[in-house]
Structures are given as structure tokens and as C-alpha cells.
């Protein structure tokens, strides 16, 4: 599984990354989690950061952030 966190790197982006890591670990999935900070790269998916891209699909963007359960659900749907 391939997870991308989109965002130039603020507190919210960081939180999103932590949640994605924890969610993948809790679900026992092997996932590569990559942080995308390049604007042009981010904007291939969305203009509202933080974004969560799972297997190439944008599953969440912007504020408010989803909670951990929601992130797990989004990841499970793509697993």
C-alpha cells in the first residue's frame, strides 16, 4: 500500500502523517508513507492541504482533519 501525505509541512500535516502511520500499524498493513511537500506535486491532487492520498487516490483534503478511526476506515477501503 502506498500512502502520500500532501502538505508543505505544518502542524496539521504532521498530525495527518502520524495518524496515517498509526492507522496502518494498527491495521497491520505494510504501507510506504511518503510526505509530499512540493507545491506542483501537491496540486496534482488538491489545493486544500493537508491531503491524504491512498494508492494514488485522494481520500481526504483540507480542514477539519479526520480522526484516527476515519483514517483507518479510508485505508481499509483501499486495502
Amino acid at each position, binding site marked *: 500500500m502506498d500512502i502520500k501525505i500532501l*502538505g*508543505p*509541512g*505544518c502542524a*496539521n*500535516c504532521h498530525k495527518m502523517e502520524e495518524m496515517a502511520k498509526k492507522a496502518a500499524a494498527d491495521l497491520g498493513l505494510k504501507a510506504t508513507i511518503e510526505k509530499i511537500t512540493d*507545491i*506542483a506535486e*501537491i*496540486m*496534482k*491532487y*488538491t*489545493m*486544500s*492541504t*493537508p491531503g491524504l492520498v491512498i494508492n494514488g487516490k*485522494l481520500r481526504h*483534503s*483540507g*480542514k*477539519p*482533519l479526520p*480522526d484516527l478511526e476515519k483514517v483507518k476506515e479510508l485505508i481499509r477501503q483501499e486495502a
Partner: protein
Amino acid sequence: MLKRFAEYLTYDIVRLEQGRLADALVFFTYDTIKIFFLLSVVIFFISILRSYFSPEKTRRILSHKKEFIGNILAALLGVATPFCSCSAVPLFIGFVEAGIPLGVTFSFLIASPMVNEIAVVLLWGLLGWKLTALYIGTGLIVAILSGIIIGRLRLEKWVEEYAYKIHIAENLETPNRTFRERIEYARHNTIDILERIWFFILIAIGIGGFIHGYVPEDFLLRYAGPDNLFAVPMAVIIGVPLYSNAAGVIPIVSALISKGLAVGTVLAFMMAVTALSLPEMIILRKVIKLPLLAVFIGIMTVTIILVGYLFNAIL
């Protein structure tokens, strides 16, 4: 009722004698309870309301609008649309790319931090609804005016070239949420914001309480009253580097008002704190060149100072 509780706590439970310390404690307890109650309720409902807006929708609405109407709509949508401060640059590019005029984009970006829910709650709780309405109204006017001026100056050449070259995916729909999900989001958002700011607010209310109890009534009237012409520009200059803590600044300011600080000066100060922040400037510098950034800061500073003078003159 709240006031009585604060007095009961101070005089009957802590058993303080009437005096300055007691004054400060009453002020502190009363404000703390009131502010946290208001914050929880207001942030919760605003979060629900905001969940119906998204940057994508806003972009769609604004992309067909002309100057003026566009600026007004952009300022209003800037208040309603939830977005993380870190997405200012992608949003800027997304707006420009959708053909939204530069001035309209700025109206959006200016209104958003200035009229935020935390500032509104604190103002309302500490200084009453009249001043809050005044702040929101003038905040919107500053955003609309500054946006129109920036638009008229035709400064598109000072947007970084790469901004026009980036192409955005078209399928940027945010998923539809059920009402229950919205409430759940709002609950989370409220807890999240409170966790982030409670400490600043407590400290600020504490300082406010101290000022309230210990600083003489006319202390500021002498230095920063309505008659001092330098008070407004000074307030703006002090306000610019004080970022992110509208939460921390307002309780202090409210105490200062009771010591004679003029209302226009206060409004100008708060606008400078919320709308002109160094971190945001640094972020924006990634898409706009220095001259445009300078024009933006200049226009904002002048408009905010004018607002300060205006209210000092009429109130």
C-alpha cells in the same frame, strides 16, 4: 449568575478580603468560565456551518465573478471557508489558475484570518456584541477595499511565473458528508482548537486580571487615549509581529480598554495581530514577488490605521 459564582469563590471559598487581589481573582474566574463556555459552543456551531463550505466550492463560485461583487463574495467566503493556513499557497495558485482576479483572491486571503471564530468569541465575551459587530464589519470592509485596490493596481506581473504553469487535477470534489458526520467533525474540531489554545487564553486572562486589579484606571488614557495621534500607528506596529495569538491578545486588550485605551486603537491593534502576520507573509512570498508583498503589507497597514483613526474619531 456567573459573576456571583466568581464572587462566591473569591470571598467565601478562598476567603480573600475586599481589595485588588480579590478584584483580580473575580475578574479571572468570571472571564475564564465565560470565555471557555462561549468558545466551546461557538466553535462547535461554526464548525458545523463551515463543513458546508470547502475551498473547491468557493473557487467554483468565485471563478465567474467580476471585481467588486467578486471582492465582497470573496471576503464573505473567506470567513466561511475552512482551510489550513498551510494551504494558502496552493489555494492562491488554484484561485489564480481558475481565472479569479488577483484582487478578489486577496480579499479572500485577508478576510479569512481576520474574522476568525476565536477572535470573534473573545471579543464578544469580553467586550460585548457591539464591538464584535464593529470588528467583523470593518474587517470585511478592509478585506474588500484592500482587494479592490490590489486588483486595480494590475500587479499580476509580480506573481511568481510558476504559479501560472501548475495544472490542477479537475476532480477535486470533497465527499458528501452526512449530518452526523458533520456533528462528529465539529466536536473534534472544537476539542482540537481548545486543546491548542486553552493555555494561552488562561495566561492572557490572568494578565488581564492583573491589569484589571493593579493598573490605575486612567493609566493608558494618558499615553494611548483618543487624543494621542501616534497611538494607532504604534498599536499597528506592535501588533504585526504578535502572530497567532488573537487568543492571547484579546483578553489583555479588553483589560486595557477598561484602563482608557481607545476603541479605534484596539480595533487597529487586533486587525494588525490577526491579518498581518509574519509567518503568513513568508508563506505567501513563495507565490508572490517582493514588490507585491510590499504593496500588500502597505495597503493593509494604511487601511488598518485609517480604521483606527475613524473609530477613535466617531466613538
